C-alpha cells in the first residue's frame, strides 16, 4: 500500500518557485532517499509532507488521507526529524521526552523511556538538562522519541548530519527496523554510501524537478550533485 503519495506538488514562496509539479510515491515498509544540491527544495518537499508548509498547487496523500483536508488525522501518524531539536533548555532529557510524547497524547512508562535512551546511547545523560547536550546528542534524543512514538511515516531531514560513526550505524539499524514494521521512511541526505545500506529507492531533485534513479546509479554517478 502507498504510504506517501505526492501528486504534481508545486511550491512557491510568494511568487518564488521552489518546487515544480513533483510527483512521488513511497510504499509502506520502504525507505526512499532524496538527493539534490543545496537549495533544490528537498527540505521544502519534506516539510510539505510533514504538514509544515502548504503546497501552492497539487495535492498529497498520507496513508490514503488527503494531506490538506485531513491534517489533524495524518499528523498522528508522522514524525519529522529535522533541523530543530524541539527541546526545552531547562528540562532534563527524560522530562523533554515525557513532554514531547505527553502533548501528543502518549504515555510512555519510565522503563520504555530508559530502553529507548539506552538504545540511542544517551542513557547516561537522563538527568542532564538539555541545554548541555551537543548537536549529536540532540539528534539521538530525537531518534529516541521516534522509537517511542513508532510513527507510520518517518521523515528525516539531513538524516546523518551531526551523527558520529556509531550514531549512523544505530540510525540505519532503527530505519531497517521501522521499515520491517511497515513504516514508510522518506529521507534527504548527502551521504550516498551510508544511504545505500538502507534505502530501497532514491531520487534526485534538480532545478525543481524530481528524477528517479536506482541505488546502483546513485552509487556509480560521480559528482552528480
Amino acid at each position, binding site marked *: 500500500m502507498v504510504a506517501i503519495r505526492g501528486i504534481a506538488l508545486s511550491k512557491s514562496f510568494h511568487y518564488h518557485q521552489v518546487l515544480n509539479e513533483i510527483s512521488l510515491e513511497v510504499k509502506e515498509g520502504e525507505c526512499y532517499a532524496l538527493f539534490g544540491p543545496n537549495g533544490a527544495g528537498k527540505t521544502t518537499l519534506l516539510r510539505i509532507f510533514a504538514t509544515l508548509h502548504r503546497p501552492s498547487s497539487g495535492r498529497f496523500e498520507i496513508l490514503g488521507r488527503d494531506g490538506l483536508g485531513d491534517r489533524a488525522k495524518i499528523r498522528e501518524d508522522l514524525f519529522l526529524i529535522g533541523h530543530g531539536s524541539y527541546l*526545552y533548555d531547562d*528540562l532534563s532529557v527524560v522530562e523533554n521526552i515525557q513532554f514531547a510524547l505527553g502533548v501528543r*497524547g502518549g504515555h510512555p512508562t519510565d522503563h520504555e523511556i530508559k530502553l529507548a535512551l539506552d538504545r540511542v546511547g544517551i542513557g547516561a545523560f537522563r538527568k542532564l538538562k538539555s541545554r548541555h547536550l551537543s548537536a549529536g546528542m540532540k539528534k539521538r534524543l530525537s531518534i529516541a522519541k521516534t522509537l517511542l512514538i513508532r510513527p507510520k511515516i518517518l521523515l528525516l531531514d539531513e538524516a546523518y548530519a551531526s551523527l558520529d560513526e556509531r550514531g549512523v550505524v544505530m540510525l540505519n539499524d532503527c530505519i531497517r527496523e521501522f521499515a520491517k514494521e511497515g513504516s514508510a521512511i522518506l529521507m534527504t541526505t548527502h551521504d550516498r554510501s551510508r544511504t545505500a545500506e538502507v534505502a530501497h529507492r532514491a531520487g534526485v531533485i534538480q532545478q525543481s524537478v524530481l528524477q528517479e534513479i536506482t541505488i546502483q546509479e546513485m552509487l556509480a554517478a560521480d559528482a552528480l550533485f
Partner: protein
Amino acid sequence: MHFFNTIRWIAWKDLLSEVRNRENISSMFFFALIVIFIFSFSFSLDPRTVQEVMPGIIWVAFGFTAIIGLGKSFLAEVHNDCMEYFQMLPVPKGAIYLGKFIGNVLFMLIVETILFPLFVLFFNLDVLEKFPQFLLIFGVATVGLSALGTLFSALTVQVRAREVMFPILLLPMAVPIFIGAVEATRGVFNGDAFALYSHWIQLLVVFDVIFVIVSFWIFEFILDF
C-alpha cells in the same frame, strides 16, 4: 481527551521551567518594583493625591509587568523550533494556546500578589477589608491581558524587533482593559458600593470572554499557516 492532556502538559512544562530558572517572574517583579520607585519620586504624595493617582499607578506598573513577562512567553518555544513541533501535533492548536494562557495567567497573578502588598506598604494604602474586590478585579483584568498578550506574544516572537513590536501591538488593543481596571480599582479605593463600579467589571468580563474565544479560534492559523 488529548485536548486537556495537551493543555495540562504545556502548563506543566511552563511552570517547571519557571521553577527551574525563575527568569520570568523575577524580571517581571523587579521591573515593577522599579516602576513603583519611580512613581513615588515623580508624584508629590499627600494622601489625597495618592487616592487620586493610585489606581493609575497600580495598572501602569502591572501593564509594564505584563509587557515584560508576556512578551517573552513564547521565546522558549521559538528557541529550538518547538513551534514547528506544535504545528505537527495531532491536537487542536487552541489547546496549545490555552496551555500557554493558563501558565501566563498564573505567573501574572503570582507577581501581582507579591507586588500588591508592596504598594500597600510604600503608599500607606488602607485596603484590608476590600481584599476580595481587589482579587476579583485583578483576576478578570489579568485574564484579559494574558488572553491578548499570549496571542500577540506568539505573533511577535518570530519578528525581528520583537521587544518593540509586542507593546506596540498589545497596548492600543488593551485600552479597554486598562480603562476598566483603573476605574474599578478607583471605585474600590473610594469605598463606593459594588453596584457603582460593577459595570466596569462586566466590561472586563466581556472582553475576557470575547478574546479568549477569538484567540482560541484564531491560534489555529498562527501555528498552521
